[in-house]
């Protein structure tokens, strides 16, 4: 079963005005269940628009959005339930914080779901520990935290609703490499421990290669490629034609191959490259 699916979906911003802009053009995409899917694409290719259609914030101009094989717009009055099932973390989510304390801010989502006090408490604690927020931070004001910690509070706020599908728009934008790795690995951890589906948007090929099981490449309002990281990154020429690049280690391996070394080129993480080069050295191909 697919976690979510778009069928023949188009989205037009500011329809019937001179500013009319087709952001998504007649696309069919299926997001597989219980994996981390990454969406990449150059800026303006429609990634954020797709993510907002998946949880019913934007209603497609044409086509249907299916979540767990159900058309989410079949009952427009119940669209809030879709938003609980499909959690969306916006780009720079730290700007949405508003409560006096970290705890209250994380509890905002679950409270809106109408859960009981004890259930809310349990979920807040779970979400907080998933992103690495300790109990002594619960009573701090979220505005006194650093940018990276604010981001974690905001992400925890959505995780606490325990969505079956968690969508994150550039969760690591603007963080240092360590903060980035930490947040991304915690997102993967969320998926594993709750057995849910994660879709994340990113510009970083390196991050995608490490954390995603499937990658969807978007270009000019349409899907351009879909497959495992190995499949996607083996087509570097095509990726470059739409203004994207393969991870740097993949480039390195391609270059080595071009210079006559017998290495695999379907390598896209540093760890794989390390093993491959070690093998090469051991076999004595390099002097």
């Amino acid at each position, binding site marked *: 079963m697919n976690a979510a699916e778009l069928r023949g979906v188009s989205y037009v911003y*500011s329809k*019937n*005005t*001179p500013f009319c802009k087709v952001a998504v053009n007649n696309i069919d995409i299926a997001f597989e269940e219980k994996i981390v899917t990454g969406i990449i694409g150059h800026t303006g290719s429609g990634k954020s628009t797709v993510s*907002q259609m998946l*949880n019913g*914030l934007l209603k497609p101009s044409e086509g249907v959005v299916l979540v767990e094989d159900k058309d989410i717009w079949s009952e427009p009055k119940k669209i*809030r339930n879709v*938003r*609980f099932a499909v*959690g*969306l*973390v*916006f780009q720079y*989510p730290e*700007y*949405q*914080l*508003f409560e006096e304390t970290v705890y209250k801010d994380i509890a*905002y*989502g679950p409270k*809106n*779901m109408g859960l009981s006090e004890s259930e809310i408490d349990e979920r807040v604690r779970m979400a907080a520990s998933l992103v690495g927020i300790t109990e002594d931070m619960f009573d701090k004001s979220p*505005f006194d935290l650093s940018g990276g910690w604010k981001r974690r509070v905001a992400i925890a*706020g*959505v995780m606490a*609703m325990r969505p079956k599908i968690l969508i994150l728009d550039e969760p690591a934008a603007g963080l240092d490499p360590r903060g980035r790795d930490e947040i991304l690995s915690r997102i993967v951890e969320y998926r594993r421990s709750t057995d849910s589906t994660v879709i994340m948007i990113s510009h970083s090929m390196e991050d995608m290669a490490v954390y995603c099981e499937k990658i969807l490449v978007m270009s000019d309002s349409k899907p351009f490629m879909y497959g495992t990281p190995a499949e996607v990154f083996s087509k570097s020429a095509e990726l470059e034609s739409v203004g994207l690049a393969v991870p740097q280690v993949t480039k390195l391996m391609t270059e080595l191959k071009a210079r006559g070394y017998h290495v695999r080129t379907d390598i896209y993480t540093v760890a794989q490259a390390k093993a491959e080069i070690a093998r090469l050295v051991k076999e004595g191909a390099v002097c």
Partner: protein
Amino acid sequence: MLKDITLGQYFPGNSFLHRMDPRMKLILCVVYIVLLFVAKGITSFALIVLFTAGIILASGIQFRTIFKSLKPLIFILIFTTILNLFWNAGEDGTVLLKLGRLTIYLEGVIRALLMSLRIILLMAGTTVILMYTTSPISLTDAIEQLFAPLNKIKIPVHTFAMMMTMALRFIPTLLEETQKIINAQKARGADFESGNLIARAKALVPILIPLFISQFRRAEELATAMECRSYRGGEGRTRMTVLHFSSRDYIAVLAVALLFAGILLLNRYLPFYSI
């Protein structure tokens, strides 16, 4: 969507109106408004309608867009129409209908129509001339230059103009940001539609707080950025785009002058049910 509000929105373009000097547009716009109140009879109003249709065509703005911008006027229009409909034309009025103590005269009907027309033209004409075809920045530029003489009596015209430019510049940004925060809170299950008045007002808190915080941050950043570039106000500043009148502006002056003359003549010799 918040962004679809068209009031005071600029449509980029390259038409005759777009390329006119904003100062001239501002002056002619004032003349146009005066004309609307000088006009008296059906004939002079017809002339203004023709003229307005002409400038709308010359601006390249779609009529549909203009009608949309008129929507907020609907209540004022209904109110005006009803009030004027029962206008008492006195002894020599033509009675159309008697409803008990109320009498509707033909003059009243015409008066109601012309009054509504005046409001519609006021809105349509000024938005096309000033709002839709003049970017807010060049509009404030024009205001600053037209009011420059006030500097002599120690009124900081430049400062006011700068404040206005900035306010105008950040309205779309503010709307966009509001929309973004609304969406983010909706994604967390915020509900703005149900509940009583108090519940709804409370639902706004999660939007207003992040919005205020980001606006204060923005204001501070903007001030720093301006100071970093040694901004010190209007004194001795030169301009990147120097405004000057061209033949286009003189043609426009001529057109408005002809309109003015036409209206005066029609008012005098062919008033036809004047109000």
